[in-house]
């Protein structure tokens, strides 16, 4: 068997209760449990978090920079999605 550096897992850490997990980096590991342990050892040595997710790197599909236009630009021609698009008379409250 050829030597291997083991599969890559992406690591996400929740720093505090109630906030979203944030990408921290990655680790190499044989399985999910080992990936969790490695992630704890590498990314949480100084109380960086309280919960860890590990995801096989090859399970992530990302948009690509070339698609950026087609993907994100249409939002700009739809200003009616933003509350500032609507004019509300002065004096109207809580809106």
């Amino acid at each position: 068997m050829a030597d291997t550096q083991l599969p890559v897992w992406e690591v996400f850490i929740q720093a505090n209760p109630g906030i979203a997990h944030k990408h921290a980096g990655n680790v190499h590991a044989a399985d999910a449990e080992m990936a969790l342990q490695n992630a704890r050892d590498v990314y949480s040595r100084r109380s960086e978090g309280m919960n860890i997710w590990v995801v096989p790197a090859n399970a992530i599909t990302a948009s690509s920079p070339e698609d950026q236009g087609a993907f994100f630009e249409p939002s700009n021609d739809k200003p009616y999605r933003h509350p500032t698009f609507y004019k509300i008379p002065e004096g109207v409250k809580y809106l």
Partner: protein
Amino acid sequence: MEDAKQIEAFEAKIVSGVKIEPKDWMPEAYRKQLIRMMSQHAHSEIVGMLPEGNWITRAPNLRRKAILLAKVQDEAGHGLYLYSATETLGIDRTELLEQLHSGKAKYSSIFNYPTLTWADIGAIGWLVDGAAIMNQTALARGSYGPYSRAMVRICKEESFHNRQGYEIMMHLAQGTAEQKAMAQDAFNRWWWPSIMMLGPSDDKSPNSDQLMRWKVKMESNDAIRQRFIDRTVPQADFIGLTVPDKDLKFNEETGHYEHGPINWDEFFEVIKGNGPCNAKRLKDRKDADIKGRWVREAALAYAKKRAKEKEVA
């Protein structure tokens, strides 16, 4: 062929401070230079564990031992961050390690010096990590996203390394005559290599212009070296150690220290592989890789077995 328009757009991004991300278009020379620099940096982190690991079992007390263990563990983590960041440029970690083991890739010249006494551990934390921080805080502002993010994380962790080293030196310098002599001896041996590890002087450092324009390099070697000296000399004075440079003097006008001539022949000899410990470091690294191989194989076999058990259940 890389067309001028792509390069123009790429350089415009860098000028406006937008980071380059792995899937973005980049010139081949940029990718190549980053792989070279980042892998060299990653290799330095893990080879750097060897001279310090030498003292874990012989640390003078439990406090020092726990600290040194934590520091060496950090270095392993730094190696991992940097290998990961390098992998985003489309090269595999297996290949990077092969380049290290075959001698094709370099690591920092500084780790080819021996750690003869306990005071060397103090000198490494104070001087070597100190010099590395100067370099790394500059690199954290670099243009490649994954490298810059790794640098930010690493710099946060390095400042403990720097302080624990200074603390070791301070205690020795305030101790018995023998302890003070030990601290001075380590200082004498590590001062010049630490100054040299920041790289050849600007007139001997090729293709710096393009690297600076692309924000692969943020500051010249001499500028970083000057800052390191300016900050470190007063730290030495404070604990009563003497900088081993008879030509060192403070220039009131410029506000900078001026140092004596650097022995660049020694630096290039060490880079070429003729330093005191080059052969030993490379052998230890290769041995560690070979001895660890069964662990990787066993971990994979165990994962496979458990996956099968889950299927059955």
